[in-house]
C-alpha cells in the first residue's frame, strides 16, 4: 500500500488539530465531547479530502465541517440542558431577549475584568452567535472566509457578527449588574 497519503493526512491532522480542537472545546465546553467531535470531523475530512486541491478551500471546508459537527452535537444536547437558573428550555425567551437591550457605550467595562465577563457571557448567547464570534475573533477567519464556511453572503456575515456582538455586550452588562447587585 502507498504510504504517502497516510503521511500527508498525518501532517494535515497535526497542522490543524489544535485549532479545530480549540474551536470544538469553546463550542461544546466539554473535553470528552470536543475530542469526539474532533475525531468525527477528521474522519469526515478523510473521507472527502481527495476532492480538494487548494489550501484555502481546504481551510474553509474544514471549518464548515467543524461548524456543522459542533452545532449538530449542541442541538442533540439541548433537550438535556437546564439553564443556569434552573429553567426549562421553553422559558429561555428572556435570555433570547438579552440582545434587545440597547447598551450604553458609557458602560464600558474595565479591561482587566473583561475576559472573565466574556468567558461567562458568551455562554448566554445562542450557539450560532457564539459560533460566528469564535470564527472571527478566535479562529481569525476573514468575513469572506466565514461567508464560505456558513454558505451565506458577506452582508449576512456582517449583520450576524454585529448582532452577535450586541447580544454578547448586553449579556456582559447583565452579568455585571448581577455582580454589583
Amino acid at each position: 500500500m502507498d504510504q504517502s497519503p497516510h503521511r500527508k493526512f498525518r501532517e494535515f491532522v497535526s497542522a490543524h488539530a489544535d485549532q479545530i480542537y480549540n474551536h470544538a472545546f469553546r463550542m461544546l465546553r466539554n473535553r470528552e465531547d470536543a475530542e469526539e467531535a474532533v475525531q468525527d470531523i477528521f474522519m469526515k475530512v478523510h473521507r472527502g479530502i481527495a476532492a480538494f486541491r487548494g489550501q484555502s478551500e481546504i481551510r474553509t471546508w474544514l471549518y464548515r465541517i467543524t461548524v456543522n459537527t459542533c452545532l449538530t452535537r449542541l442541538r442533540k444536547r439541548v433537550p438535556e440542558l437546564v439553564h443556569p437558573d434552573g429553567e426549562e428550555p421553553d422559558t429561555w425567551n428572556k435570555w433570547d431577549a438579552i440582545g434587545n437591550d440597547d447598551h450604553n457605550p458609557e458602560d464600558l467595562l474595565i479591561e482587566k475584568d473583561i475576559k472573565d465577563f466574556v468567558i461567562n457571557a458568551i455562554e448566554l448567547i445562542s450557539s450560532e452567535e457564539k459560533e460566528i464570534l469564535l470564527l472571527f475573533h478566535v479562529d481569525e477567519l476573514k468575513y469572506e472566509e466565514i461567508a464560505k464556511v456558513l454558505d451565506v453572503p458577506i452582508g449576512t456575515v456582517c449583520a450576524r457578527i454585529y448582532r452577535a456582538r450586541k447580544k454578547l455586550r448586553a449579556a456582559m452588562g447583565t452579568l455585571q449588574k448581577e455582580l454589583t447587585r
Partner: protein
Amino acid sequence: MNCEFDHELLSMYADGALNRELLSHVETHISKCEVCRRAVEDIRVIGKALGSLPREAASSELIERIIAETERTTRRTAWDSMKCTISAVWTVGMNGFKIEDDRERLLRRELPVWVARWVLFV
C-alpha cells in the same frame, strides 16, 4: 446619549472590513462623535478579550487516535472493495453457469435431441 449612526458600519469598521469609501465615511463621523468613537473602542476591547481567550490544544493521544482510526478505515475500505470485487466475479460466474444450465435443460426438453445437441455444441 445616543447616536443614530449605523452601528453595523461601526462594527465592520472595528473589524477592518470596510471598503475605502465607507471607511472614510465612518472616520469622518467618528472624528466628530464621541459616542460612536467609544462604541468602536468597546467593540475592539470585546474583540481583544475574545481573541485572548486561552487556546486549548489537542492532545497527542487524540491525534494518534485519529490517525489510527483513519488507517483502520482505509484498510477496511480496501478489504471491502476486494470482497466486493470477488463477490461480483463469483456472482456473475455462478449466474452465467446457471443460465447455461437452464438453457441446456430447456433445449433438451423442448427440442429434438439432434437439434439440441447441435445447438449446445455450437
